[in-house]
C-alpha cells in the first residue's frame, strides 16, 4: 500500500545495524588510487620545474637556488597534473590520505637534497662511512 511502503522500510531499518562509519573512532581503509593529497619524495625529485609549470593553480613553487620544493595545500586542487608531469620516478605522488585541516595558513616546504637522485644512496653510504 502506498501509505505503508515507507513505514515498512523504516521498521526494517529500526532493527538493522546502522550503516554509519563511526568516523573519528574507526577510520576506514583508503580506496586505492584515490586522490587524497600531494606528497613529494624529496629524494627522487630533480627540481625539473615541470610540475610547477603544469600546475593549473600555481600551488607548487620550486626554488632551485635554495633547493626548496614548496607546496601550498590551500591552492592545490588535487588534479594530479603534477603527478603525471613528473619525469622522475614517483617524486610526486598523490597519496590516498587526505590533508588534515589547519588552523593557520602556511605552506609545506620540502628541502630537496642537493645530490643528484641517482647518487643519493651512495652519498648516504659515504657519509656513514
Amino acid at each position: 500500500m502506498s501509505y505503508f511502503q515507507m513505514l515498512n522500510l523504516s521498521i526494517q531499518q529500526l532493527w538493522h545495524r546502522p550503516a554509519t562509519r563511526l568516523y573519528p573512532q574507526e577510520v576506514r581503509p583508503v580506496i586505492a588510487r584515490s586522490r587524497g593529497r600531494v606528497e613529494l619524495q624529496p629524494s627522487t625529485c630533480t627540481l625539473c620545474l615541470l610540475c610547477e609549470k603544469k600546475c593549473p593553480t600555481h600551488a607548487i613553487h620550486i626554488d632551485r637556488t635554495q633547493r626548496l620544493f614548496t607546496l601550498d595545500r590551500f591552492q592545490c586542487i588535487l588534479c594530479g597534473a603534477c603527478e603525471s608531469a613528473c619525469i622522475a620516478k614517483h617524486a610526486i605522488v598523490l597519496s590516498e590520505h587526505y590533508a588534515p585541516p589547519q588552523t593557520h595558513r602556511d605552506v609545506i616546504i620540502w628541502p630537496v637534497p642537493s645530490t643528484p637522485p641517482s647518487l643519493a644512496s651512495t652519498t648516504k653510504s659515504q657519509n656513514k662511512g
Partner: protein
Amino acid sequence: MNFLKKSPWILHYDASSCNGCDIEVLACLTPIYDVERLGIINTGNPKHADILLITGAINAQNQSVVQTLYEQMPAPKVVVAIGACALSGGIFSQCYNLHQGVDSTIPVDIYVPGCAARPEAIIDGVLQAVACFNQKQTIRSNQKRTSHGIKLDSHH
C-alpha cells in the same frame, strides 16, 4: 564545562563554490557519516548556529551576505573554510570576480583543504573548530564580567 564541544550546530553557506564541497558537507549528515552522533546539527539559520561552514571563494555579490551571516551568529562562533576555493580561491583565484579566500572577508579559524574536501576532512575540521570555542568562551565571559549589568546593546 563547556557544552559547545558536545553540540556544535552548523550553518553552511555556499559562497561561490562549484557545489563539490557543498554536497560533501551535506554528505556528512547522511547515515554513512551521521554527524548527529557528535551533536552536530545543520541548522540553516545563522541565529541558531555556532559554526559557519563556508565553501567557495568570496565574490563581489556574496561578500555582504557572508558578512551579514557572520554578524548574525551569536557569540561564541567559529568559521570553518572548506575546500581550496574557500581557502585561497583555488583554480578560480585568477577570476576577475573573486576576492580570494574567505579570510579576506571574515576571520577564519579552521581551514579544510581539498578539492573537493572529503567528508572525513570536514568532520575533522568541525571537531577542530570545537576546540576553538574554549578560548572564545573564556574571552567572552571575561567581557561579560566587566560589563555586568549593562545591556550589551551593541549595534554594529
